[in-house]
Every structure is written in C-alpha cells, then in structure tokens.
C-alpha cells in the first residue's frame, strides 16, 4: 500500500497544502513545531478514522477555522483509492472512500493499512492495561473483521451489564437476576472468543517481535510479550458466575476479556519499571516493526510505515541498526519518517532513493 499525495485543509497548522510522497522513503524535515508530526497524524486519520491518542478531533481543526478536510490518494495493487476525512465543528466526523461516506466509521478499519511509530507509544508501556489491549485489538482488527465485531458487541454488552448492576443497587429481583443471566452468558461467550484470539495473536506475533528486537539491539536484551488472562484459565465460566455477588456490590463487572493484560517484560521484569528510556523505546520500535510484519503477513499487503521521531533516545548503535533494517527494499514498501535534524537523516539515506520534504511553519517545500 502506498500513499501518493496528501491534501490538508485547515488541519492543525496547515491552511491548504498538498504533499507528494516517494514510493520508498520520504523524509519530513523541519524545526520543532514546523508541522512534521501533523502530517503523520493526518495519514493516521485516514487509516484509523482518528488521530493518535494525544489530541481530540476538535483540536485538530486549525484554530478558528470551521472544519478540517484531509484527503489521501492511496494505491494498492495498481488500484487507486481516495480517502477523505472531514470534520466540521458541531457535526459528526465523515469518512469517505472513493466518494462514498461510511454509515459506521468502524467499517473503514482495515481498508488502509498503516503502521505508525510515535513518541506517544511510550503510553503503551506506561499506561493501564487498556492501552495495551487497544493496541493488540487494533492489530487483530486490521485483518479480522469478525474480531472487531465481537469486540464492539462485547463493549456494548459490558456497558449494559454495568448499567444493570448499577440500577440493581445491590438487590436482585427475579427478573433482574434473569436479565443478569442473559448478559453473563453473552459476556462469557464473547470473552472466550476475544481472549482466545488474543492468545493466538501473541503466538504469531512473538517471533516477529523477537526477530526485530534482535536486529535492532546489539547483544542480548531478552524481552517478551505474554497475555495475562483469567478468561483462558480453566473454570472461567464458574469464576465469572461466582463473582456475581462482588459485581453487585461493586456495581461493575470484575471479570472478563476487558481485564486481559498484555505483559511486556525485560529480562523477566516489567519493562515499565526496569527498562531505561532507550530500552523502552527500542522495545516499542521493535513492537511496531513486528506489527508491520504481522499485518503484512495476515493481509498480504505491505502497510505504509510512519515513523515519527524514531531516532530519538536511541544510541548510535541502535540508530545504525534501525537504518539498516529500514533500507531492506525486499521487506519494506513505503516509509515516511520525520526528523528535526535534517543533516542526520541525509547522512543515513542515499539521496537517490529518498524524497526530502522540508516543512516550515505549516508550509511545504519539496526537493526535486
């Protein structure tokens, strides 16, 4: 998959700009605050219908403008597809594929294959289990539509069950108990569907991760990913039922797939606590590169790889390794990266094969 051009209108600090991209490596350079990350954010919108975790939709509209419009021209297998994301203040966000608006935004997920590595990825390590689940759910949903459907249904049933528990206020009349049974049966069924697929995901993801980590990190830094889930343990259904009294008391659902956590370890210890900044960053870069390989394998489409500030925090050895990884033409298709230090990037890549785009305060200069 490849993005040919990107048209930004009133998006963040861009008033009206068009960017072309190289089919291999495009490098966006410019000083801090120039608008490099914003370009990648825009592509993220076109793939995932939203930005990265950092800002809200409304904050992406250029200050004082009434709307933003982002249009990308993608190509996959010699077929062009035009994706538009449009957001007007006070209105619903619209995503259009080849001129046709989606009824449900979630239907767009999986249409545009993108993997993005951003400084905000540190949240995947630092934050609650929810962020890691979202990451894994995103990886699976990109190629498994029934999984996404089950996930959305699970979230809906969970919300209803929690609302029901609250309405019960600790007391359970016969109809209320019967309704709870109904939700329980659904949640137990969907939980095991989701958690089992997450187990499978970790199994097929792990080798890609280890391979990328080994290529990136000199020497041995043993890292691993595993899923901690009560759902996949024996007797989950019974445990779920036994937890009812507690659920009623706490007025929320204490067990289920929404409690799964993906454990990230360095030398057997939580990397959140025991990894240095650079080790955590390396872990995350390897995670994203593995996500790239995983997606490419499961969808047979090479995603667009977006790397925001990817060299930051890495030592020279790791930067060197990363650059050699990215130079593998047989492995990667289109890569778009940002760097505030233009000379550094220029020293890494052969000028013949990259497109340099200089950005200054929301205006774009393309080098021929």
């Amino acid at each position: 998959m490849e993005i040919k051009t990107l048209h930004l209108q009133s998006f963040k600090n861009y008033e009206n700009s068009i960017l072309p991209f190289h089919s291999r490596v495009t490098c966006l350079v410019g000083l801090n605050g120039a608008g490099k990350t914003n370009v990648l954010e825009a592509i993220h919108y076109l793939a995932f219908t939203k930005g990265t975790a950092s800002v809200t939709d409304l904050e992406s509209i250029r200050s004082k403008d009434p709307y933003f419009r982002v249009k990308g021209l993608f190509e996959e297998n010699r077929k062009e597809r035009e994706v538009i994301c449009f957001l007007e203040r006070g209105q619903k966000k619209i995503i259009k594929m080849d001129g046709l608006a989606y009824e449900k935004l979630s239907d767009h997920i999986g249409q545009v294959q993108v993997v993005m590595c951003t400084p905000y990825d540190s949240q995947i390590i630092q934050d609650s289990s929810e962020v890691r689940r979202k990451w894994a759910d995103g990886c699976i949903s990109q190629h498994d539509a029934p999984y996404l459907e089950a996930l959305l249904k699970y979230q809906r049933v969970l919300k209803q069950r929690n609302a029901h528990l609250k309405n019960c206020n600790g007391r359970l009349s016969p109809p209320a108990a019967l309704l709870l049974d109904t939700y329980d049966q659904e949640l137990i069924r969907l939980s095991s569907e989701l958690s089992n697929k997450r187990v499978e995901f970790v199994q097929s993801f792990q080798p890609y991760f280890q391979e990328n980590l080994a290529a990136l990190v000199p020497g041995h830094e043993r890292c691993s990913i595993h899923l901690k889930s009560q759902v996949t343990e024996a007797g989950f259904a019974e445990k779920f039922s036994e937890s009812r009294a507690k659920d009623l008391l706490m007025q929320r659902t204490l067990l289920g797939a929404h409690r799964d956590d993906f454990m990230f370890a360095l030398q057997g210890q939580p990397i959140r606590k025991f990894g240095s900044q650079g080790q955590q960053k390396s872990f995350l870069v390897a995670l994203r590169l593995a996500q790239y390989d995983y997606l490419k394998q499961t969808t047979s489409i090479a995603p667009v790889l977006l790397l925001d500030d990817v060299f930051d925090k890495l030592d020279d050895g790791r930067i060197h390794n990363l650059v050699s990884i990215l130079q593998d033409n047989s492995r990667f298709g289109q890569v778009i990266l940002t760097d505030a230090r233009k000379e550094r990037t220029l020293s890494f890549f052969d000028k013949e094969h990259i497109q340099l785009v200089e950005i200054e305060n929301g205006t774009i200069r393309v080098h021929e």
Partner: protein
Amino acid sequence: MDFPSQLVARAVDEIAKLPGIGKKTALRLVLHLLRQSPDQTHRLADALTILRDEIQYCDTCHIIADIRECTCRTVHTDTSIVCVVEDTPDVLAIRNTGQYKGMFHVLGGRVSPIDGIGPDDLKIESLVKRIEASNGEIKEVILALSGTMEGETTAFYLTRRLDSYPLKITSIARGIPVGGELEFADELTLGRSISSRTEYHPTE
C-alpha cells in the same frame, strides 16, 4: 442559544429535545410557526395535549389505540400464534406483508439498562399472563425484535422467561439488516422472513 427572545429560546429548547432535531432545525420550526396564523400553532399544541392525555394502549396486546380493547380479541386471526414486537409501527409493518394472520404483542421497547429500561418496564409479564390465560391455545411465540444488541438481549431474556411453557419459540429470519429496525425493512424481505422463521437459538 443567544436569541433576543426568551420565549423563542424556550420553545426552541423544548423542540430540540426531540430525537433527530438540533437547535438549528428547532429554531427554523419555531420561526415557521410564528409566520403562520396563531390558529395553526394552537391546533398543534391542542393535538399534542389531547394525544398525551387521552392516548390508550390495548390492555391485551398493548398496541397504541384510542381504546383499551382493540380488535385483537375479536377479529378473526390465528389465535395460536403471538408475534412479539418492540413497538406499534412494527405491527403495521408485519401486517402490511400479508404473510401473518396471528396475534401481536407489543413490548413497548427493548431491554436497555443504559436507558433505564429493565424487563419490568416492558410488557413481558403481561405476555406471560396472556400465555397462561390462553390455557395452551397459544402454541407459538415469534420473536420479531430488532437485530441490535439490545433486541437480541430482549429476545434471549424472553426465551429464558418462557422456558417452562410448552411453546415453540421462533425468530424471524435475519434478512433484516443487522442493527436495522423492523419498521424500515421492506415488505418483501419482512414477509419472507416471517414465513421462513426458524426455531430460536440464542447467540449463533
């Protein structure tokens, strides 16, 4: 809304509470009414007040009617089948298909604790009583609920509630778009889905 008239603002606020109507549309409607004769607005207000105060639901099938005993008990229908729907418009949609001659039972919504609607807020116990009172005459219950998650929960709940009765419980075939409301399904699809209804199995 910063409208110079408090009276307009108040009317707009009330109208904007209706589903699918935003403040802009509400304002347009209010200004439209002000341009018409006062009679027009009075007739609208009267119609709404009378509707609210005098509306009746049939005691048996709970369809919206002006009387508490609708034709469901007298008209010659197949009294061995009850078709359970969420709302009155669903009854009309199914009647229009011409494929169904049985009785109806209107639940008045679907179970959704988020919206504060539990099983007790729907005409579920009334259905149970109706089945008991029929002394075995009712042999089949067709669940014709929407394909939303809440519709499914309601269907699932009903089958569990009706477990102990010697009934055949069927569900209309899902030619209906998932999450789609019955009343919007076209007649042909709906008709077909009733005649080809299947034994209800939750969560397939």
